[in-house]
């Protein structure tokens, strides 16, 4: 019975939890052409000092060992303070490449309906700190392309007339 309960708890722990910290949505332009969805995700491992120290203490039998782990945990914690979302990562520039990835996935380079989710997939000791971006790539239709060409031609004619 104990084994079954422990296994159930362990399964629940390793399944992980999802936390959503922030959500943003941009304007949605649906009249310029066909919309093709894009879904991108970047992540970094987050490290929880408290949980790591608890796990390390379990492996230590002596009081002196546990005290040493506590001291190390407190020293590291001093470097991690201030407002933040999720567990600390070793580098916070993991989301920098999202912009170039978005542009690469959209040949027309016209994006709309951009949604940004700052979320976390939670596992014991480590977490996945995730920035997820969903957007639509506008593929101009022949009508919009023709309309733009007409507009350009008209403007050119007006410009030549004025000259």
């Amino acid at each position, binding site marked *: 019975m104990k084994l079954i309960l422990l296994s159930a708890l362990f399964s629940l722990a390793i*399944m992980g939890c999802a936390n959503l910290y922030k959500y943003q*949505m*941009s304007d*949605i332009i*649906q009249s310029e052409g066909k919309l093709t969805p894009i879904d991108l995700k970047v992540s970094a491992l987050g490290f929880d000092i408290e949980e790591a120290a608890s796990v390390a203490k379990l492996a230590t039998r002596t009081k002196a060992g546990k005290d040493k782990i506590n001291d190390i945990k407190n020293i590291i914690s001093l470097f991690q303070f201030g407002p933040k979302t999720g567990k600390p990562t070793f580098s916070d520039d993991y989301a920098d490449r999202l912009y170039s990835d978005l542009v690469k996935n959209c040949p027309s380079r016209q994006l709309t309906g951009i949604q940004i989710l700052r979320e976390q997939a939670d596992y014991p000791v480590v977490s996945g700190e995730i920035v997820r971006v969903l957007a639509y790539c506008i593929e101009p239709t022949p*009508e919009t392309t023709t*309309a733009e060409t007409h507009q350009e031609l008209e403007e050119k004619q007006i410009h030549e007339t004025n000259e």
Partner: protein
Amino acid sequence: MKPMNDKIKFFMAILIVIVQIGCASMDSVSITQIPKERNNVVESKVNTWRFLGIGFSNDFVLEAQSDLMKKCPQGNITGIITTYESYWYFLLVNKVVKAKGYCSEGSK
């Protein structure tokens, strides 16, 4: 004295529960550029309930945008204010995403 202590404990427990009920927090808010034409307002609201705040997926928020797009077919939605809120009810939390914008026809 003993029954009196039990009564006090009971009322303290009720008070703690009442204090826990309706704890609201704004997790994030964003707004896009507000248009000149503001006649046609479209709104959407999606939510999910979580026990102890534990959830296994955040995909529920994506319905907010698709709802808005359905209410403004082939149109443009601008001036969107999006809020992500949490309401705690003792052990349950209600995660709510609200989006409100202005629908206008396209330029073609």
